[in-house]
Each structure stands twice: as structure tokens, then as C-alpha cells.
């Protein structure tokens, strides 16, 4: 590939990213912000691919642009007035306090605050750029990356990113699944699910009956291929969640989640639970926590990833529902 052509592409991508980010952040209308944010995520996917980070590109396309976009769009849809407009409606101020807001002294102080913060951000940008240039120009010895490639043969997988996520730094991923579980518990505590959508017309229904099986198949493929190529539990879980989102938009009642509350709880916990169980089994076998025997590592990683995919998908679908499911098996406490 011609180096000059690539530089041209890089400059175009960077300009697109910067202007989309600026437009997202300065849009006065929340809906416009959300749509620009989705576009920003899609262009970003190209940048990740260009920087040889295909795993990150897949996750960005499925989660960063796709599911975050769906969550934000649903939030805009259900709150057309409050908490969204750029005016100060969401601070809960009374009408007479609002008048105070517009008196000259307050306005001046808020302009002063704006400029102070802007200058602080500009200064921070310079510090960051300086630090980045230092980091990029110094010759690092790279001991971590070297030990990853030295031990890759013993990790049970040949994709180095999957090896880091599920073997060398499995701790981080276990805690990440715990973060997802905490988030879904918070969502359950705060709210019930939003009201559903109307049943879709025949054309959309036809599309759904093609898309959902294709997405399930693709999730399975991403899960399997993650061992030796870009892919893995997170990308697969997000793809599976996308199938749930589509079913939800088509007005289906049970969007792939179990009706019974106890089964739902099991699939939410199975990702972190099974991961923890494998770690504890290693302890019982006299090995360090989450240190798999090399001969078994490949199977254990696939097992953990399958369970993680199910939990991730269920968590993301419930996040899209916006709360604990309604109209299910009644269980009052």
C-alpha cells in the first residue's frame, strides 16, 4: 500500500473524528447529539481497524456505536421534554429562581466559570499531548508484550487479546463481569421496564425472522473464532443482545429472555459465577487462583466465554428494557 495514500486516509479519518466529536458535544438538541455520537462510533471503528486493533473495532461497532446508541436513542425517545433540552429545566429550579439565573451578575460569573474551565481544558490538552509525545518517542523495553508472546503457546488460545483477557489478566475480566452484574442490579433497583413497542408490521416482521437467526449464528461464530482471531465473548454477547433489541423493537413479548424470574437471575449471574467457580476449582487443585493447566486452558476459556456471553447479552438486553421485567412470574417478597 502506498504510504502517501495511507497518510491521506489517516488525515481524512482524523478530521472526520474531530469534527464529529465537536458536533456531538456542541449540538443543542439531544437527539442530534445521540445520532452524531453513533456516527462518531462508526467512523471510530475504521480508525481502530487502521491502527491494527480489529478486536477493539468489533467491540466498538457492536457495543460503542450499536448498543450505546440504542440505549441513548431509547432514552431520548421516552423523555422528549425533561432532562434533555439544553436549558436548565433539569436542575429542578422554581420559576422565581430561574429569573435570578438571568440577572447580569450571575451571568457574568457563569461566563467567567466557562472561560476558566475552557482554559483549564486547553492546558490539560497540552499536558496530555506532551505526555503522549514523551511516551511515543521513548524506546520502551516492552516487557509485558514480550511475556505475552513468550507465553502465548501455554494460554490455550492463539489470539493474544483473548489470551490477555481470559488467561493472563483473567482477574480483570472477572471483575468486569462483576461490574456488569452491579450495573444490572442498580437498574433493577431503580426502575421497572419501559412500556413495550407496538407489534411490527409484516415487512419488519419478515426482516426480524431473517435477522434474529443470523445474529444468533454470528454470535456463535464470534465466540468460537475469538480463540484464534478477532472476536470473543464481549463481541458475541453484544451481537446476541442486538437480536434481543430487534425483537423488542418488533414488539415481541418475550425477547429471548426466560419468563421465570429465577431462570433470568441464573443467566444474569452465570458469567461471573462460572468464572469464579473455575478460579476456585484451580485453588482446590493446588494451583494459583485462575491459573489454568495449559492442557485444559483452551476448553476452560471456551466454557467461561460461553457463560460470559450469555450473561453479557442478558445484561445488555435488560439495560435496553430500562428496568426489571414486568408481567412475569409474580414473586412478592
Amino acid at each position: 500500500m502506498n504510504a502517501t495514500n495511507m497518510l491521506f486516509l489517516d488525515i481524512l479519518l482524523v478530521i472526520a473524528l474531530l469534527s464529529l466529536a465537536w458536533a456531538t458535544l456542541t449540538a443543542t438538541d439531544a437527539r442530534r447529539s445521540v445520532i452524531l455520537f453513533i456516527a462518531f462510533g462508526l467512523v471510530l471503528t475504521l480508525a481502530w481497524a487502521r491502527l491494527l486493533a480489529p478486536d477493539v473495532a468489533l467491540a466498538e461497532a457492536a457495543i460503542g456505536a450499536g448498543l450505546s446508541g440504542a440505549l441513548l436513542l431509547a432514552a431520548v425517545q421516552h423523555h422528549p421534554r425533561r432532562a434533555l433540552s439544553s436549558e436548565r429545566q433539569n436542575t429542578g429550579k422554581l420559576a422565581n429562581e430561574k429569573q435570578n439565573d438571568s440577572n447580569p451578575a450571575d451571568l457574568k460569573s457563569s461566563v467567567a466559570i466557562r472561560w476558566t474551565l475552557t482554559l483549564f481544558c486547553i492546558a490539560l490538552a497540552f499536558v496530555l499531548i506532551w505526555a503522549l509525545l514523551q511516551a511515543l518517542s521513548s524506546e520502551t523495553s516492552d516487557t509485558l508484550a514480550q511475556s505475552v508472546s513468550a507465553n502465548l503457546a501455554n494460554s490455550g488460545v492463539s489470539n493474544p487479546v483473548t489470551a490477555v483477557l481470559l488467561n493472563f489478566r483473567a482477574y480483570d475480566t472477572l471483575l468486569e463481569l462483576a461490574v456488569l452484574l452491579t450495573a444490572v442490579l442498580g437498574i433493577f433497583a431503580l426502575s421497572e421496564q419501559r412500556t413495550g413497542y407496538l407489534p411490527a408490521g409484516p415487512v419488519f416482521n419478515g426482516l426480524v425472522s431473517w435477522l434474529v437467526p443470523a445474529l444468533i449464528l454470528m454470535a456463535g461464530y464470534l465466540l468460537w473464532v475469538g480463540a484464534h482471531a478477532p472476536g470473543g465473548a464481549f463481541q458475541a454477547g453484544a451481537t446476541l443482545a442486538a437480536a434481543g433489541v430487534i425483537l423488542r423493537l418488533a414488539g415481541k413479548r418475550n425477547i429471548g429472555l426466560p419468563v421465570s424470574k429465577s431462570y433470568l437471575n441464573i443467566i444474569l449471574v452465570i458469567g461471573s459465577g462460572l468464572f469464579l467457580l473455575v478460579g476456585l476449582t484451580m485453588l482446590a487443585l493446588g494451583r494459583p487462583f485462575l491459573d489454568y493447566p495449559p492442557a485444559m486452558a483452551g476448553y476452560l476459556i471456551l466454557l467461561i466465554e460461553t457463560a460470559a456471553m450469555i450473561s453479557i447479552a442478558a445484561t445488555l438486553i435488560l439495560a435496553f428494557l430500562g428496568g426489571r421485567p414486568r408481567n412475569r412470574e409474580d414473586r412478592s417478597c
Partner: protein
Amino acid sequence: MLTAHWLYGLSGCLIMTFGLRAVLLNDSLLQRIIALNVMGTGVFMILITIAYRGPDAAPDPIPHALVLTGIVVAVSATALALTLIRRLTEEQDND
């Protein structure tokens, strides 16, 4: 010498600071959440730039794994924050 991938690192720095400014100054809660996501993206760009080792060398997998974790944590934090906003507006509507 300034090579192409430095461009991404520099724009990562700028996107992070754009985002931080919007998080601090935007009045709308939903747009603050979007700004927080944009800010996170800037951090991810810096990390991926540091991982890049040129067109022929394999990049460092550890920052890639960190960014993957970051993307998933960001989406779960976003989901929780959106539910908090929804609850907040419901409470304000009831007042």
C-alpha cells in the same frame, strides 16, 4: 519523526479534552453522559496509539484488552446513568 499513527494519538488528546469540557459545562444530563462517552473514547485512542508498533509489527495486546474492558464498562455505566436520569425525571414529574 511524526508518523501517521501519532495523528490518532493527538486527536485522542483533543477529543478527551473536548469531552471533559462538555461534561463540565453542558446543562443537559443526557448530553453530559454522551460527553463522558466521547471523553472515554479519547482515552481509548491514546491507549491504542501507544499499542501501535508500525504497519508490519504486531501491536501490544495489553492496551487492546484494556480498551475492550473499558468499552464494556462504559456501556454498563451509561445504562445505569440513563436509568438514574429516568428515575430522576419521574421523581420531578411527581413533585
